[in-house]
């Protein structure tokens, strides 16, 4: 809270009118509060300070937030020792934007368990309305998978997309994941590599000579010089013919060496997008892959390149997380082509030499290639060049506890034991999986 005394300043009539106009404009532009897409139709959703507008927006203090969150997580950790369940979950809020640019912020959340009435079973989903329309008439429509305005808890936000890759929040999430869930830190690969590379660009400025004249800066210097010489009098028109240009007044850009940070890791996210993956299995895989990605971003100080590959009977690369998460086909399932594609990309782009490579694969365990020989061949080609391959089997409810084809093939091939350093596999039931289980699974996949 501000201790400083502050009072509303008195306004001049002009300012007053302008402000009035501003307010009216703002009121007019105010988004409809009660559109069908609104978060909640509940009676208790609206309150005085939601419905009445204003125009003043200070930024929240992020430093304060971070410090407190760490304390809270520390306290949450102690709960287990005291014999109670942990209560802080990491949620995210997604704001869908134009195109693919959605914004995501990571926030902690918690629910206070109490005895509440459960309205979900007996109550029909209805609310109030007003205006015209006969009984039975449709008055509005909404996409069945609504664009999440605000979604908390698990599941990759569908508004996801590019911001997942660029935002600081992914980094923050990785930091939190590393600290909260004690995910391991990455050990550097055998040889130490330089974190930076040198590029050359016209960035430095030099006076007197150079490759490219910087006009604005030059002009400023000329004016300065001529004020000192008395050739320019403030308030009077300038006679440019009288201006004197000194050699030092010319500002140029010259070529210079720039340190550029190098991407240290490439991570391939590969998933089965066949029909059987629809719903919960996909959601679990996408959440897990988002968490892994965040963790790597933190580990490599944001220098991570990600590649997304989906497959049914064939494999293809997609450009962003959103497509990776949302694409759905009804096709069959063959796992080997996906890894053939990964191998091909690594080979043609010479990734193995330059980067730490991670491959994470998510599936429900189906594979038409029942003996798994092709997959084995591709994996044997892949394992020598990567830091880690992690398989996640997100089982459908009908699979139950049975071993899936992929699990069977991998187990039979003995890769898990033989290549323990590079290969990990974990399976869970997609119907019952929660955040804790997903994190545990990540630990299994990434631990040393």
């Amino acid at each position, binding site marked *: *809270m501000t201790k400083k*005394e*502050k009072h509303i300043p008195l306004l001049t009539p002009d300012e*007053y009118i302008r*402000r*009035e106009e501003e307010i009216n404009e703002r*009121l*007019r532009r105010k988004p409809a*509060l*009660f*559109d*069908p897409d*609104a978060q909640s139709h509940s*009676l208790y959703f*609206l309150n005085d*300070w939601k*419905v*009445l*507008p*204003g125009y*003043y*927006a*200070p930024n*929240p*203090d992020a430093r304060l937030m971070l410090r*407190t969150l760490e304390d*809270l997580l520390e*306290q949450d950790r102690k709960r287990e020792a*005291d014999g109670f*369940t942990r209560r*802080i979950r990491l949620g995210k809020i997604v704001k869908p934007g134009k195109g693919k640019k959605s914004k995501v*912020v990571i*926030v*902690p959340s*918690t629910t*206070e368990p*109490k*005895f*509440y*009435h459960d309205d979900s*079973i*007996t*109550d029909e*989903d*209805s*609310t*109030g*309305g*007003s205006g015209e329309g*006969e009984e*039975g*008439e*449709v*008055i509005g*429509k*909404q*996409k*069945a*998978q609504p664009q999440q305005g*605000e979604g908390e808890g698990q599941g990759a936000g569908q508004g996801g997309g590019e911001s997942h890759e660029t935002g600081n929040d992914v980094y923050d999430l990785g930091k939190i994941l590393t600290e909260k869930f004690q995910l391991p830190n990455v050990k550097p690969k055998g040889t130490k590599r330089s974190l930076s590379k040198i590029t050359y660009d016209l960035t430095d400025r030099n006076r007197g000579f150079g490759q490219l004249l910087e006009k604005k800066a030059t002009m400023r210097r000329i004016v300065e010089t001529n004020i000192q010489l008395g050739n320019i009098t403030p308030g009077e028109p300038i006679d440019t013919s009288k201006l004197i240009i000194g050699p030092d007044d010319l500002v140029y850009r010259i070529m210079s060496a720039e340190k550029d940070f190098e991407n240290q890791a490439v991570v391939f996210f590969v998933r089965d997008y066949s029909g059987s993956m629809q719903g919960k299995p996909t959601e679990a895989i996408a959440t897990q892959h988002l968490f892994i990605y965040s963790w790597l971003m933190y580990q490599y100080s944001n220098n991570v390149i990600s590649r997304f590959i989906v497959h049914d009977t064939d494999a293809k690369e997609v450009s962003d997380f959103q497509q990776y998460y949302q694409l759905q086909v009804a096709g069959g399932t063959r796992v080997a082509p996906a890894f053939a594609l990964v191998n091909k990309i690594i080979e043609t782009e010479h990734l193995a030499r330059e980067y730490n490579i991670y491959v994470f694969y998510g599936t429900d365990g189906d594979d038409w290639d029942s003996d798994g020989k092709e997959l084995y061949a591709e994996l044997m080609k892949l394992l020598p060049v990567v830091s880690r391959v992690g398989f996640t089997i997100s089982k459908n409810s009908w699979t139950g506890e049975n071993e899936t084809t992929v699990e069977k093939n991998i187990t039979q091939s003995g890769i898990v034991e033989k290549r323990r350093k590079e290969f990990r596999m974990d399976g869970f039931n997609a119907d019952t999986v929660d955040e804790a289980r997903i994190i545990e699974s990540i630990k299994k996949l990434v631990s040393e």
Partner: protein
Amino acid sequence: MYLIDQHTKQIMEDCKLRAKAQGLDFGHETLEYIVSNKDLLELSPKVMIPTLYDFWVHDIEVLKEYGKYKLYPSNPYETVINSRPAISFYNDNNPDWMNIMIFYHVLAHIDFFQNNRLFEHTWNDDFVGVALSDKRLIESYRSRYGRWTDYVIEFARSIDNITGYFKTLAKCDYPSSMDPDPMVSYYFNHFLPEVLQSQELAVFKEQERYNALVTKQGALGVKAFFAEIISKHPEFESAFKAYVPQEQPADLLEFIRDNSPFLKRDGNNWMKAILTIVRNTAQYFAPQIRTKILNEGWASYWHDNLFRSDDRIVGHEVGYGVLNAGVTSLSRVGLNPYAIGLRLIQYVEDLAEKGKMSSDYQKLVLADDQRNFNAATGKGKEVIFNLRENFSDFMLINTFCTQEFVDQHDLFVVGKRPNPEEGTIEYYVKSRKAADYKKMLIDSLYHPPVVMPDLNKTTDECLYLVHQFEGKQLVQDFIPEVMAGLYFLWGSEVQLETTEIHVNREAETEDEMFELQRVLYTYSDKKINKTKL
């Protein structure tokens, strides 16, 4: 956070004069603060009470609000808390005309807080001060007992939504002379039905005889009555002496505080103080959620009436029109408590103004006669002031949500159904019947479950709880966690009797769709199990 300046305070005082002239009633003193958005984000988890005790869940909420604010910056506008003196918070930078309207809105809220009977138990408190001393006490516990303080707060809060608010309320103004003499009460309520096993009819007859005697002879009659009883049933006197009245606790939180063997142990006394603080705090806020529609409707009614008749509106009619419409327009889809509350109050005012709340009107059969009825009683204002004094949201809706009201404002129930072909969810007009609309409104009102201890089955070794089933099951996911907390507070096994609803998807009729099953949860030693009853 700082007080509004003298210029703005003057505007407020002018508003007070005009509001008082219209009959609004609020204390002489009020405090108005300017707050930043950040202040408000930090205050909102504490229900706007700056001095409320600290608790980690509030911190999580604040962090979440910061995150939300990053994406959805909003500008909170005004909020008011029910304390003595009443305190209200405002955003910086509002122009004067807007402040006038807000002040009217706020003054109506204060009037509501200080006159609506549901708030009666808060009328004598300076809650901000009470909360501050509670906060200090909790702080001192925290420095002594560390995070165990927070566990006790957490467990107490797990049942703070089911406190016996209405029982507390009923005790206000309850005349002690209402209770009969203990001997009379024992004779009719326990001795006759339990000891003598008398039939109901016999009890009634006995009551008649007693009443006749008392009416005729007063105290002497009572004496004679019991002299006769004692000669007839010599055991009565000793049974009455041996009888210890079993008082029903007001709620679970109070029961645990007063009876838990764990809290009675040496060194655990401080936990009782925390339970009391949590309970009092919860009860303090209880009336607000039960009067949301009426309170917002009342405030909207008055800001509109007062500001439109205020000469200071001149030149700002359009700005006000837009702002007011944003607040009080009926939503095409969704429930807006401001809109519904305002219209219900206006509807009641109109009914009363025309004398339609009379038997003369109710006797009319023809719709035309009803429509044109106007006794011009001029009682509109009087009746809505009565409404604000004595009604809650439930009473308001239950009494006045009529077909006439629903038709007047084109209201309907919106249904939601999937359209698999288009991959969309459709909103459609489900019903325009007042009964359906009223049911939908009432179903969306806040209504916590009733969970009380069974005094006959509860012992020091087992706290036995019974959930009174009202057609809705409890949220299953929370049951184990709440019981774990109660296990801590009681110090031994906790049992909960409740009803589960099983959905039969193949059912053909609606009656067969839901199957009810009474179950018993038992929590002991970190394990929970469930048996069918």
